[in-house]
């Protein structure tokens, strides 16, 4: 199982005053460190119009990471694809792929914040359909010298992408949040599927739904891949780990999860302004795994046994590299390729 991480501060976290440019510099340093410590991938997220100056262009941030690394894969997560024209997205992705000598990975999500769609002038209701079409378009654009596409939302005739990507195609993951509907859509469409934070039990159910939908749609098994984002809190004791979770919730997650409509109830409706007692919020809280080091390793092993090819986690990179990664390494970390590419 591969391990992806992130780092630095591509926004100004509430209650943690710091210069944004210093955070950007820290992001570049964190990418270099992740590679040195043996992580497999490094990521960047996306949001717009945020009071905290959240990074709006993950592919651009990853280009900075590309310049100081040569091995780690560079993945967006989540890039809000319905806010891009698919060719526009493919161009940004191809530039990263060339700059990184073929290490770009697209993690594409639907987005959910109403004002982001209003700011960009795109329809929110059609975002699921548009994401699915866009994935097809980007696959075509980064696989063929020239391509055409005739979809419900997007149409292109005899288009050639500049630059031509190194990877043919650039790998794309469908980032489907935590809803069962998303898992089913990913399977039906035959997309590799990167789950958002969920408890193991819910993850099991989503993976089952994903595989069932893929099987029924006739997709070959080798195309169907699963991976997960998994926030973990580690302590000397369970109580200490749970205390850390409270800090993470208070400093970062609560506003993102309780506001903005991230949470979706069982009927697929967005929940705004939920209280901390709301079942879907509690479901999110339980998705952040708390435990001692041994418990966390055991939990991650369960994800590996489920067939996960990768997991993205946060936390102290030195600790994770020293204590967790070796538990999952069956051989040496792949050596950095010879300096053939654009990046160092």
């Amino acid at each position: 199982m591969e391990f992806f991480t992130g780092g630095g501060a591509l926004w100004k976290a509430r209650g943690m005053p710091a210069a944004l440019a210093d955070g950007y510099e820290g992001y570049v340093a964190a990418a270099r460190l992740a590679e040195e410590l043996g992580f497999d991938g490094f990521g960047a997220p996306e949001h717009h119009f945020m009071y905290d100056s959240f990074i709006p262009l993950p592919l651009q941030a990853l280009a900075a990471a590309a310049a100081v690394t040569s091995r780690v894969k560079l993945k967006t997560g989540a890039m809000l694809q319905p806010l891009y024209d698919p060719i526009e997205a493919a161009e940004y992705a191809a530039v990263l792929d060339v700059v990184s000598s073929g290490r770009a990975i697209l993690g594409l999500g639907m987005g959910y914040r109403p004002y982001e769609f209003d700011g960009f002038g795109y329809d929110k209701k059609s975002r699921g359909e548009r994401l699915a079409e866009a994935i097809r378009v980007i696959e075509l654009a980064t696989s063929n010298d020239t391509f055409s596409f005739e979809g419900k939302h997007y149409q292109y005739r005899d288009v050639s992408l500049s630059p031509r990507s190194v990877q043919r195609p650039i790998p794309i993951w469908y980032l489907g949040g935590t809803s069962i509907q998303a898992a089913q859509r990913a399977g039906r469409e035959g997309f590799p599927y990167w789950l958002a934070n969920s408890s193991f039990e819910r993850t099991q159910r989503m993976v089952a739904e994903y595989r069932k939908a893929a099987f029924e749609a006739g997709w070959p098994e080798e195309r169907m891949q699963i991976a997960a984002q998994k926030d973990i809190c580690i302590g000397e004791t369970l109580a200490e780990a749970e205390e850390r979770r409270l800090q993470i919730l208070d400093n970062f997650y609560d506003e993102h999860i309780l506001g903005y409509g991230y949470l979706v109830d069982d009927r697929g409706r967005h929940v705004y302004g939920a209280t901390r007692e709301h079942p879907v919020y509690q479901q999110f809280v339980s998705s952040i795994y708390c435990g001692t080091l041994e418990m966390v390793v055991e939990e991650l092993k369960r994800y590996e046994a489920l067939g996960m090819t990768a997991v993205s986690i946060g936390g102290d990179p030195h600790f994770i590299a020293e204590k967790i990664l070796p538990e999952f390494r069956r051989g040496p970390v792949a050596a950095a390729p010879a300096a053939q590419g654009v990046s160092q």
Partner: protein
Amino acid sequence: MRIGLSWDVGDGRSPVDAWKAILDEIEVAAGYGFDSAWMTEERGNPASCSAPASFLTAVAARSRSLQLRMAGRTVNRHHFVRLAEEVAVLDLFSRGRAGVSFAAASRTGVAPGHVHEAIDFVRAAWSTDEFRFRGDYIRFPRHTPDSAPAGASEPDAPGAYVPQWEWGPDMPDFLSITPKPYAVNPPVYVEIDDDETLAWAAARGVSPFVRADVPTETAVERLRRYRSLAARAGVPRSATEPVLERRVVVDGATGPTTLGGTPEALINTIRGLRAQTGMSHLVWRRSTAETGEAKALYRFASQVQPLLQA
């Protein structure tokens, strides 16, 4: 006068090889004291760079001194919000070294007014917090009513503060584009091929850019006209940075778009162009086939650039 470099990338090399050659040359040029690196938005061959901000963000992590400029940025291929955001992100990664030059309307199939609106929009995005924009080509946010003032406008009064995460599904009438650039006002340039844009840019104090494929004679005429109109509009000389992009051949022949000659001849030619046009930034347009020929860069940097001012 500032001296920069830009590149043609159509010499048949793979994208990785062509871009690596440029990056290597940028590092050499930074060491020689060149002032800027310009990556042009282009399509049409496999090595063309359609998203120069990302390329330059990679450059930012490898150079500390060069100004980083996007050239030929089109207004209809990438979203106008993203045009504002990408300059700000590059500016933060480079700590204030970002700038952008927009392509002429006539060579990108859009109306001049579309380019003008895009420039007004990105400048508003960088300099104001919550705002909206109503134009013929740009409306931000989407639900901005026809009754809104033309161009950028801000709320008359701030109203009660509601944290963003408590907005719910309601659409705010004004939005702030973030992050803001590191610099207060990143430099903005526009190609002045079109008369309408030339006059508009001169009146607004938007710096002019003349591309390498415009004959020098025409470039001089257009930059002179720009200077005259800017002066008439009361735009101070210090508010703009006229840019002339040329091919340069040290010890070579002068051509319609090429500056050639001995170092002494080049000094006289460039000083003459500066006197005629008021240009303050010369960009040497190179071919990726020329990269690796550091000798020419060294000669220019050591024998021409230091002698451009008496």
